[in-house]
């Protein structure tokens, strides 16, 4: 029953696939129930967002936006030589393109607000990343990041110290304490045998890592396998398959609409949009709740090339597709009835020093660590979420190494896949790999790490110097997990998805942000220039007046004795040359009685100099007549009973 007049909506197969029913994100039923992302803000951290384009402008959130490349509040993309700064705008359109405006396309969460943080269009440092991840973090709920380290199959990189601190701070303090949601694209290094476990953003416990499938449900040529990928959603495939239709920029060669958005870049924003729908129905979902709901609701589907394995908790994961396809209907219905997962419990093993040689394939080095009930008692950890292994290995050719982790259940995760293009001679220096494949399984038991060398036997053998195991999870028992699975399935009919049913939500924390308003450098420079200009003219004008007054005083008034105010003639008044100001001096009776003078001096004073008209106060005149030294007056100078002492 959902109809839009946006001309490209029929081609948005990822929203509603008429050609291949079921090969879409299953969102139309959610929209029918008026769940559109209202009240949620998603920020695209990228090369900018053209927020003036008509498909984005009505949903644009300036409060959540910033430009870190130019250091101003406006994230408009800059035209570039390669016509490449359309990326952020395309991602933004996927999330929140306005419906029914007869223009281009519709966003997944078309009722949400969309912000932009421009940070990729220029030099990028660790500190800039840290600023980006927490920018306006009480306004922005979800951070969509379709970028990462090079997917060249030989890079090992991720967030550095500050970026890591910012991600952690974001999940602790962002979104009123419920935690910022960071959605990242798993990477496009499939052709180089890349693996997202060499990407610290993708294998972080704080991020929702999303991969891609094409319209046929297969892993595209660019997609990477990964043990730490949570789920997949649709994107473009090879040239015979359709790509994602979304808003485009209209600068340079852009037309405002594109049918060619693809890569894992196109998948992550769709996931961000679906999470926005979840947050509308239950705003108090924590960052861990969102990950749990994805694990619980993603759907395994038929793909013979994918190695689906069902773990001890009943969740099926494949290195190609994570826990499966994201399904908006299932996500939103699960979110509606979800009660928060208990606190994050963790266990860290000692640093296990091995210093053992790594044999050539088919042989493997196997090291074990047993996690006992006592080890977990303090934290209460019972079932797993992420499992991380930090290793230090020396090897002359890093890409020849293969690392596998086995959880106590026997569930295997290929955490360090061999990479033929990685010839780095420096091995791994405290690099952390992770897996989500043991999600929901019991934490207690023996963990096995197997390392082997799949490379050339002529090279020196590698050495496993040390490793350390870190477990993350909760106090949920395996029974609790099963109960939650049953509860969610009971909600999938949609019976709870209406306004009449709402679980209570706590209000969240009030966390002040760093800056209410900051003056940008450009504004500051402008203010300084205007201020300097004003000060200069003020000083000049004051000098002009001062010096002109001094001349008048010297010549006419203050030669000797008290100052006498100039008499003003009737003629001068009539001609309008009379000074308009009232003299600021007290009249003093010769007997010493002072009276305040209220009007201009009279013309009866014979000693009054010629009338001073405006303009007579030339530079030579002394304006400080009020400060003339007191002199005894000659009797013939006394005028009447009063003398004016200025």
């Amino acid at each position, binding site marked *: 029953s959902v109809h839009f007049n946006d001309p490209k909506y029929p081609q948005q197969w990822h929203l509603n696939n008429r050609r291949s029913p079921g090969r879409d994100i299953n969102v139309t039923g959610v929209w029918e129930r008026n769940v559109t992302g209202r009240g949620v803000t998603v920020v695209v951290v990228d090369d900018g967002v053209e927020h003036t384009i008509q498909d984005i402008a009505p949903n644009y959130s300036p409060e959540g936006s910033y430009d870190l490349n130019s250091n101003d509040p406006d994230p408009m993309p800059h035209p570039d030589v390669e016509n490449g700064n359309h990326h952020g705008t395309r991602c933004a359109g996927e999330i929140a393109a306005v419906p029914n405006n007869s223009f281009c396309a519709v966003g997944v969460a078309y009722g949400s607000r969309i912000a932009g943080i421009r940070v990729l269009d220029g*030099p990028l440092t*660790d*500190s800039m990343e840290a600023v980006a991840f*927490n920018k306006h973090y009480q306004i922005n709920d979800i951070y969509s990041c*379709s970028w990462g380290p090079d997917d060249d199959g030989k*890079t090992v990189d991720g967030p550095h*110290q500050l970026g890591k601190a910012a991600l952690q701070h974001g999940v602790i303090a962002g979104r009123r304490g419920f935690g910022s949601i960071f959605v990242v694209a798993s990477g496009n290094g499939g052709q180089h045998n890349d693996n997202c476990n060499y990407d610290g953003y993708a294998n972080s416990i704080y991020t929702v890592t999303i991969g891609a499938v094409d319209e046929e449900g297969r892993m595209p040529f660019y997609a990477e396998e990964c043990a730490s990928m949570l789920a997949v959603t649709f994107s473009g495939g090879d040239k015979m398959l359709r790509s994602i239709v979304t808003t485009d920029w209209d600068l340079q060669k852009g037309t405002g609409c594109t049918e060619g958005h693809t890569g894992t870049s196109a998948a*992550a924003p769709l996931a961000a949009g679906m999470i926005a729908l979840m947050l509308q129905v239950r705003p108090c979902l924590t960052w861990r709740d969102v990950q749990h709901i994805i694990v619980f609701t993603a759907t395994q589907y038929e793909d013979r090339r994918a190695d689906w394995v069902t773990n001890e908790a009943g969740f099926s994961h494949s290195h190609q597709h994570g826990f499966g396809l994201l399904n908006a209907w299932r996500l939103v219905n699960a979110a509606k009835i979800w009660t928060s997962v208990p606190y994050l419990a963790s266990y860290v093993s000692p640093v296990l020093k091995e210093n053992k040689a790594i044999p050539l394939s088919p042989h493997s080095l196997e090291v074990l660590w047993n996690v006992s009930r006592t080890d977990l008692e303090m934290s209460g950890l019972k079932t797993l979420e992420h499992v991380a292994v930090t290793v230090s290995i020396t090897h002359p050719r890093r890409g020849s190494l293969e690392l596998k982790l086995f959880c106590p259940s026997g569930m295997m995760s290929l955490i360090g896949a061999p990479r033929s293009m990685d010839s780095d001679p420096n091995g791994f220096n405290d690099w952390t790999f992770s897996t989500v494949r043991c999600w929901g399984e019991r934490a207690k038991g023996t963990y096995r790490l197997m390392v082997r060398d799949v490379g050339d036997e002529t090279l020196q053998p590698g050495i496993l110097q040390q490793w350390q195991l870190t477990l993350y999870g909760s106090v949920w028992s395996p029974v609790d997990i099963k109960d939650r699975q049953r509860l969610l399935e009971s909600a999938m009919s949609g019976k709870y998805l209406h306004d009449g049913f709402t679980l209570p939500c706590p209000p969240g924390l009030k966390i002040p942000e760093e800056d209410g308003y900051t003056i940008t450098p450009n504004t500051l420079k402008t203010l300084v220039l205007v201020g300097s200009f004003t000060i200069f003219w003020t000083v000049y004008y004051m000098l002009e007046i001062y010096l002109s007054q001094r001349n008048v005083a010297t010549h006419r008034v203050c030669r000797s004795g008290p100052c006498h105010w100039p008499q003003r003639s009737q003629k001068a008044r009539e001609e309008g040359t009379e000074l308009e100001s009232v003299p600021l001096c007290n009249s003093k009776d010769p007997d010493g009685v002072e009276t305040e003078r209220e009007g201009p001096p009279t013309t009866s004073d014979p000693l009054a100099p010629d009338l001073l008209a405006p303009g007579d106060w030339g530079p030579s005149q002394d304006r400080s007549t009020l400060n003339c030294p007191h002199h005894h007056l000659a009797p013939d100078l006394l005028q009447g009973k009063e003398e004016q002492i200025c």
Partner: protein
Amino acid sequence: LAETDRPGAQGPGGLSWAVHLDSLEGEGQEETLEQQADALAQAAGLLNAGRIGELQGYYLFTQPAGHQQEQQVEALRQQAETVLARHEAVRWHSEQRLLKRAKR
């Protein structure tokens, strides 16, 4: 920009360091940390560009204007490293380098 676009190259606008100061307890700690950061930056021959985002206790120190020649820059780097490495209030410091990031 072409020169500074190499990963690992010094950050935009010259040398810069991120510094994590030991946090103080009690009221007014942010102000005291800010003052401490100012003093430390001055001692290191740098300018305090302020707190890094929302990270309490983390500050960005930047190269003052005017140090353009390579020798001057190198001297400044050594001075900054020496001061920051030895100062008791500095829990961690790191010279900011360019990161290589790609859209996907």
